[in-house]
């Protein structure tokens, strides 16, 4: 059954990159059991996205600044990858390129079985819509729209032909524990609730990869941890790949991998250096996400 589900998942999300491409900088070692105490050890699936030897240089000639150098990274379903590093180290450039928001100067980005590094803005929106959801530090919710409207409009924007955007938005908000407040405006929600709305919005269109840009930076510790737990759950139970940029080392316990970026270069953190995984449902946590039938559900 597991093998069948894995094969179905791989064929749904696209063929894996060629076997000849370099392995990710963590050495390709098996990650920690996804979700720590929440999940059970599962076989590592083919990467959903793969960056190979990616470089990004801003400016030209004497003014050229190398923001990223020979960066390689695999993004696997069911894994939470933390990206850490000092300000200006290239973290944002890394996730911007991974999320197809920035074109690399060199290197390959494998997605849906093909190198998409050279694609133009004509093709990229559809690829982004199918594959990525983004969560930001500042939430970026339309203040005039209720929570459910914010999620629904993103679904419609991703897919103008989406017929059940409202129902989908309600379901996603229920999933992140915001069912009772789905008709509230962002101004009437707490920071953690806003971020949950933003996560629900990112899940619109069912993208396999979630990218967070310091999604907990504007939140207090308890709320930040609950948001991170939610992302962990989404990775574990729905087999999504979660990539989070953070400055907060306390979040490492939710991660399967930590990637450190310094001076535009990727350095892996030894697996043994990661802190212990969190308990499954710590006290004071928000309502657990409800499982659903999805290609990314645990096989």
């Amino acid at each position: 059954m597991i093998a069948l589900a894995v094969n179905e998942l791989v064929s749904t999300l696209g063929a894996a990159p060629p076997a000849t491409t370099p392995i990710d900088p963590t050495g390709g070692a098996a990650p920690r059991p996804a979700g720590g105490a929440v999940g059970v050890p599962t076989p590592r699936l083919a990467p959903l996205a793969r960056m190979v030897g990616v470089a990004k240089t801003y400016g030209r000639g004497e003014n050229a600044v190398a923001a990223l150098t020979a960066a390689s990274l695999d993004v696997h379903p069911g894994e939470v990858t933390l990206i850490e590093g000092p300000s200006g180290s290239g973290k944002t450039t890394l996730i911007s390129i991974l999320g197809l928001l920035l074109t690399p100067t060199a290197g390959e980005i494998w997605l849906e079985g093909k190198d998409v590094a050279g694609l133009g803005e004509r093709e990229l929106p559809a690829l982004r819509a199918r594959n990525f959801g983004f969560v930001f530090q500042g939430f970026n919710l339309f203040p005039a729209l209720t929570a459910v409207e914010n999620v629904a409009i993103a679904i419609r924007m991703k897919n103008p032909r989406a017929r059940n955007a409202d129902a989908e938005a309600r379901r996603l908000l229920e999933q992140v524990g915001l069912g009772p407040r789905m008709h509230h405006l962002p101004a009437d929600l707490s920071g953690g609730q806003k971020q949950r709305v933003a996560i629900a919005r990112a899940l619109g269109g069912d993208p396999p990869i979630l990218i967070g840009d310091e999604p907990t930076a504007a939140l207090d510790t308890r709320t930040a941890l609950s948001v991170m737990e939610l992302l962990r759950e989404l990775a574990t139970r729905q087999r999504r790949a979660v990539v989070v940029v953070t400055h907060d080392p306390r979040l490492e316990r939710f991660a399967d991998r930590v990637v450190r970026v310094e001076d535009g270069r990727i350095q892996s953190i030894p697996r043994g250096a990661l802190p212990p995984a969190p308990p499954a449902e710590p006290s004071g946590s928000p309502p657990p996400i409800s499982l659903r039938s999805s290609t990314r559900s645990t096989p």
Partner: protein
Amino acid sequence: MWTLARKLLFHDRLRFAVAIAGVSVSVMLVLVQVGMYFGFMDTASSLIDASRADLWVSKQTNESFEFATPFDDRAFYRVASVAGVAHAERVVMNFAQCKLPDGGDLGVQVVGVDTTPGHRPLLAPWNVVDGDARRLAEPGAIIVDRTEVPKLKFDRIGHTTEIAGVRAEVVAVTSGIRSFTTSPIVFADLRTARSYLPQLGGEPVTYVLVEVAPGVRVADVQARISALPHLAAYTTAEMSARTRSYWSTRTGVGAGFFTTAVLGVVVGFVVVGQILYSGTLQYLREYGTLKAMGARNGAVVRVILSQAMISAALGFAVGAPLAIAMRAAMKLANLSVALTPPLYAATAAITAAMCAFAALLSIVKVLRLDPASVFKG
């Protein structure tokens, strides 16, 4: 998209109210100014447009309808004898001084028309609301418009006065026949009118109105008459257009009205553009987020265009009734504002275009918005 556009607009109600006020003022200015222009032009050509004539014949050198120089009565017979002319009538027209009850004088525009019985006249007073228009054939009988009563200072049908020292009796009153020159139009029989216009001398004719015989092409008759020395024949539509064009271009009245109308559009453009742009800047990160998640430029542009169209529609919905109210107020001042369905339609289209163009800056901003920018700060 409409829902998002509407909610974004309504979220900041004060700003939205300013936008609607800007569009409304613009719509009102366009409607009232262009309506006044057409009202003036309708007034300028009202005598021509009310005639049943196929052709208007005048001196070749005439440019102005009101200030046309007359020709000799023999020219009338030359025109009447042209092949294809079924019926011809004389019109004499010029200015004279009318004596007021208080002893003062007022310049009036005398229009002498043919009242010969047995044929329905090609030009006659219309919209008669009081008195007996058939008495116009009587010597010294005149018909004036009721809007001119305050100027002429008479209080009843049968009021007598003098025009150029000759007796004149008001036998009927019309409604809505006004002169572009602001001098009251005084209808009289041809002979009476000539007696009021001694300065023209002899038996002057200012225009000959022609009814073309059935089955004969008007253009053929027009060409034949225009071939006569010193005469020019125009169809009624051509004559009307010439008159409108004369007043519009020679007096600058057209430029004046349209400049104000254009200024109205500019005001609306600037207000709506500024409001939409500031709104776009306010939600730039949210738009960037949608683009990052895969929303195409077209989808985001549609939101902004929808906001522009909502502003246009509501601005028109407020501005048009304001223009109607202005028309009612101006009517009290004897000013005509011609608000016609085509003018409403054209103004609606102009408003939509104005708001769409006003959204261009916002659209360019969103098109150039780098979705990666949402990760920066």
